[in-house]
């Protein structure tokens, strides 16, 4: 039994890494721009489908590199044309707009690629488990965890050391002052949104390797992402990372004892965390939206 729990906890970290990736993109956008991006799942799906279409020409790895970039470009365009007009308004408006956008994305993918689930090819080199005991650690999952680790490290590096990153962090704390300091806030928000969407796109391409590729692939993943952000605490990216991992582990361990609750448990966990720590685990007091 302990082995089962350990295995599941360990596996939960792997799954959690994936949730964290998606939640981080969402968190970036929320923190700087105050935008609740309900279309995040839609961007995820689009990236997956783009990768699927690109793979015959550029291969699996080409798809992995190019599709998220293309999706990020789409994100930049969406921000420029649509999201930009919502700053300064109640975040509920961004919710409604991105909700509408999510509808459009889902319908567009269904229209362009069909409602049928598409077989997403994963290179054989990745589909074998790394060891017989740890059979659930396929090359693909190990690769995914490594990739998430690299991306997260790169993200934190960018935020800590590069000019763009520092500006984003400053903007999260006090956008007005940042603007007064002469920084082009419009461009900053635009790039930040693109970055967040890039992470969603990457999550999408990774997801397609593990899940069936169909138009609603993004919508089941969006709620756990929000939960991850809340559990970790708004305004804190390390919190989001922690939140994602915790969700994965909680869900995995619950499956050992009470599998049908494995989906509900993340909500229970969130409620429990909030009742004890009203700002999430690593959240800063005072931030509520």
């Amino acid at each position, binding site marked *: 039994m302990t082995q089962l729990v350990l295995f599941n906890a360990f596996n939960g970290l792997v799954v959690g890494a994936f949730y964290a990736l998606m939640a981080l993109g969402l968190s970036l956008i929320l923190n700087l721009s105050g935008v*609740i991006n309900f279309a995040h799942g839609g961007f995820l799906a689009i990236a997956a489908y783009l990768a699927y279409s690109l793979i015959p020409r550029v291969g699996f790895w080409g798809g992995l590199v190019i599709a998220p970039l293309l999706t990020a470009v789409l994100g930049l365009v969406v921000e420029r044309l*649509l999201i930009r*007009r*919502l700053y300064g*308004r*109640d975040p*509920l*408006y961004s*919710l*409604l*707009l991105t*909700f*509408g*956008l*999510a*509808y*459009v*994305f*889902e*319908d*567009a993918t269904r*229209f362009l690629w069909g409602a049928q689930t598409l077989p997403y090819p994963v290179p054989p080199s990745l589909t074998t488990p790394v060891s017989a005991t740890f059979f659930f650690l396929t090359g693909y999952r190990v690769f995914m965890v490594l990739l998430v680790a690299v991306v997260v490290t790169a993200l934190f590096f960018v935020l800590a050391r590069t000019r763009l990153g520092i500006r984003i962090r400053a903007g999260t704390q006090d956008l007005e002052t940042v603007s007064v300091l002469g920084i082009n806030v419009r461009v900053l928000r635009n790039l930040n949104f693109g970055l967040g969407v890039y992470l969603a796109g990457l999550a999408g391409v990774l997801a397609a390797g593990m899940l069936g590729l169909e138009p609603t692939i993004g919508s089941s993943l969006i*709620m756990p992402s*929000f*939960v991850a952000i*809340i559990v970790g605490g*708004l305004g804190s990216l390390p919190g989001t990372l922690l939140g994602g991992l915790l969700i994965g582990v909680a869900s995995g361990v619950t499956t050992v004892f009470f599998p*049908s*609750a494995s*989906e*509900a448990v993340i*909500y*229970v966990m*969130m*409620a429990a965390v*909030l*009742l004890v720590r*009203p*700002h*999430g685990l690593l959240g800063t007091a005072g*931030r*509520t*939206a």
Partner: protein
Amino acid sequence: MSWLERHAPAIILPALLVTMPWWMAAAGGYTELASRIVILGLAAMALNFLLGFTGVLSFGHAAYFGLGGYGAAMTLRYLVPSSAVAILVGVVAGTVAAAIIGALIVKLRGVYFAMVTIAFGQVFYFVAFRWNRVTGGDDGLTGWSRLPLRARPLTLDIQRNDLAFYFFVLALFGLSVAAMGLLLRSPFGRTLLAIRENERRARFLGIPVERHVWLSFVISALFASLAGALFALLNNFIDPRALRWDQSGNFVIMAVLGGMRSFWGPLLGAGIFVVLQDFISTRTQNWMSFVGAFFVVIVLFFPRGVLGFLRRRVAV
């Protein structure tokens, strides 16, 4: 603005509602659609009591909506063959749940509050799903239907007569809306507005903010559960999806669509939402693109929602 401008919605809308079955049918709709609009409009207006007038976002109102629905359905299925009792049970179930949950979460704010309301909604969803011997689980609860109302010697056949059911729903809607309107005009209601505008200042003035938010939450849930009970009666069916966060999301969408800052806005939002989806999905399988694009356009060009736009420059 003039007396007429201020009270126009309160005159026009009831007139439209009372005559809806007829002009709706002429425009290609049907009575059941009208009932649906009124019921979901009630739910959206109930949510807006909390959202637009107290300034608190709940994303889990479907929990009380669904509890109202299940209370009514289970009463008719297992307990008493009476629509009136069913509605009462549904309302009590939703309100009591809200009272308990509200007390637990009232210290939270903003997105945290919203998310925790989702959490409770999802727990109820899970219970409804799993306890399938009683609730029917994912298949939903069937094998019952709304029964004619009898108050000797009169009988209102809301079971077979769609028009009778519509006016029954409209009557309850009218009472609820009147109650909400009176509450909002009272000192209590004014206090809620004060909390919405500036919570900290309200606190400095000595207003017990938490207690007001809790009361607003419970009142809002009461009418939401009434809407839920009526919803179950409308469909002669209830299933766990009525409790899920996407149902809550729909109510929020309706409120924002119609105009959060106005009293009647959410009803308009519900009407647009229901009718739009109904009409467009009949004409094309790609209705989601049109509806989605519509939401985007509304947000960009009608910043105060549809009713806000109709009111133009005047704030409520």
